[in-house]
């Protein structure tokens, strides 16, 4: 029997979750070391966007998206150290998300951070923000330049 816990998010109000839903970001996100437990919430039905909602700070949530939705062939190199920390072997299922930044009121200036992807072990739900030192992986990668504002689903 799984126990459901209720949590009140500043953005999304009451959210019910079970322990199995929790993503554990070891060390937190860079700049946010105090938050290590997150939920992945859908933005809207049919939307490619998700929210990483902190369980420690109700007001803290990050918009994320599967980078494959915007970028072809993005495969951040997972170092030995990160693979070990995440408990990932070659065939472990994993999720990769990039954090989305939208300046207030200017959605057309949306960027995704290809230099700091979040990799989640799909089995243990242990996660980490990687640091990718590759000039092709921009911290602010504009995604709407060649697309209309309305995203294809």
């Amino acid at each position, binding site marked *: 029997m799984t126990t459901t816990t209720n949590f009140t998010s500043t953005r999304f109000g009451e959210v019910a979750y079970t322990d199995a839903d929790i993503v554990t970001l070891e060390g937190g996100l*860079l*700049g946010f070391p105090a938050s290590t437990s997150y939920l992945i919430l859908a933005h809207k039905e049919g939307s490619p*966007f998700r929210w990483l909602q902190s369980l420690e700070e109700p007001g803290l*949530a990050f918009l994320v998206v599967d980078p494959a939705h915007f970028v072809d062939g993005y495969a951040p190199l997972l170092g030995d150290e990160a693979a070990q920390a995440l408990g990932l072997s070659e065939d472990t299922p994993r999720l990769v998300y990039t*954090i989305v930044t939208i300046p207030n009121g200017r959605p057309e200036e949306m960027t995704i*951070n290809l230099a*700091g992807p979040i990799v989640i072990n799909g089995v243990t739900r242990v996660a980490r923000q990687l640091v990718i030192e590759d000039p092709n992986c921009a911290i602010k990668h504009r995604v709407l330049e060649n697309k209309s504002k309305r995203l294809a689903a």
Partner: protein
Amino acid sequence: MLVLTRKVNQSIIIGDDVEVVVLEVRGEQVRLGIRAPKDVTVHRKEIYEQIQEENRQAAKTRTEDVPE
């Protein structure tokens, strides 16, 4: 802060298993070699700070600005 003077090919040891070697000094640039266990991450400080700053910006993203 501990301050040490080193010459090319000399190194410092941090803890038991992290070694930083001065490989080359050319004008204002210093090339360093770092030998560390696999479970130690080494990155340039600037990229860490830039990602921290980007995360802070990202945390301000509002739900009403997310495209449909």
